């Protein structure tokens, strides 16, 4: 090897450990995430959710098997890939969770308050039926390409409102969703943040919720993800099933169209 080649080779050796430090950290974290895939506690929620879907419950002792999630009464397969959407019977755009609440009220005779209570469970004493039902219904869309509609005027309006909310800066820290999720290469501590403004970022982020959140020890849904982002941004509480939550979901879900749905997943 001549002298010039040797110098170049030596330079390469000096540089790579420094560049490698950042790369190897995210490689190791990727290994952590891969090791978690085998055996996802979300399956326990999926099983409980399927039971809740089929059981006769509520004042009318009726199962949810007649619930129309957008593809016809009782059709669960592929339903989540087309949500949120406009529902004529309710005359509004609904995400999965608000639609489940609707069916729990209309079919099973629960009050809205009853159906909506405890959207985010905590431990084995306070399990959330909505989380379990969401886990079951979403699992039936695994492998399906996201195909959220944007035809009805209310769907279009929800998308526009969601987009505005995504960029809306507020709270004590003047954050918007876009502050963390509007650019490439952002991170919080060791967590790389997805850029939701790119198709890949949007797809990867949306198609992996709900997820068993290891740090929560619970299965968490997309409504929870938005609620928790608002909390971390020091925004006022995002009300479960609110127009704001649905609008943001429409915006983010629609932007993930084309991505293959792959949840319930498992995350840190």
């Amino acid at each position, binding site marked *: 090897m001549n002298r010039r080649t040797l110098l170049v080779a030596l330079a390469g050796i000096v540089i790579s450990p420094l560049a490698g430090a950042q790369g190897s*950290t995210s490689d*190791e974290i990727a290994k*952590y995430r891969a*090791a978690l895939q085998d055996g996802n506690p979300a399956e326990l929620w999926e099983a409980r959710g399927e039971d809740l879907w089929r059981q006769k419950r509520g004042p009318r002792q009726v199962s949810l098997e007649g619930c129309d999630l957008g593809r016809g009464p009782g059709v669960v397969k592929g339903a989540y890939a087309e949500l949120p959407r406009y529902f004529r019977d309710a005359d509004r755009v609904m995400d999965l969770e608000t639609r489940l609440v609707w069916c729990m009220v209309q079919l099973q005779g629960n009050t809205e308050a009853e159906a909506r209570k405890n959207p985010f469970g905590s431990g084995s004493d306070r399990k959330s039926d909505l989380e379990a039902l969401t886990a079951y219904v979403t699992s039936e869309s695994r492998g399906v390409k996201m195909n959220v509609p944007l035809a009805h005027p209310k769907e279009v309006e929800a998308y526009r409102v969601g987009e505005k909310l995504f960029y809306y800066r507020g709270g004590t820290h003047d954050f918007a969703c876009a502050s963390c999720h509007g650019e490439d290469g952002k991170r919080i501590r*060791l967590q790389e943040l997805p850029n939701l403004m790119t198709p890949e970022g949007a797809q990867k982020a949306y198609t992996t919720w709900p997820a068993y959140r290891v*740090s929560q020890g619970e299965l968490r849904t997309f409504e929870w993800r938005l609620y928790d982002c608002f909390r971390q941004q020091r925004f006022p509480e995002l009300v479960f099933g609110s127009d704001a939550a649905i609008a943001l979901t429409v915006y983010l879900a629609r932007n993930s169209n084309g991505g293959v749905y792959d949840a319930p997943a498992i995350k*840190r």
Partner: protein
Amino acid sequence: MDSGRRTILKSGGGLTLLALGAAAGWLDCEDALAQTWNKAAFDTHSLGDTLHALGGDEPAQSQDIEFVQTPEIAENGAVVPVGVTSRIPKTESIAILIEKNPNMLAAVFDIPAGTEPVISTRVKMAQTSNIYALVRAEGRYYVAAKEVKVTLGGCGG
């Protein structure tokens, strides 16, 4: 057998074949019932104390104990995958110890003949720490260690 009846009755109004089978097996197999839990071993704070409680002594460092599917960095200490493979012949048990946890011993697996000395599970780690894999083979103890860093991802929730 009073507590036994109570447990079976607790299985629910509709006794499935599964529960009946389990109940029958449980009432018959006295040794399955008598599986003991080594309280002393789970109360220790050092490798030496744990070994002492397990009935062993000075372990030999071994290159034949491998950590498999055990990441260097865990994004959250609540769930850390740990896999241990022992290539030591006649491995009888594999124990997982986490140095900086409130109590060191996390789990002990007894490997009967015919079962591969390969275990994969998930543990909680209070902080970045060494994980020890302790293997007992033919009454002798062997150990290997791996450091796993624990971080807190994202906004900390």
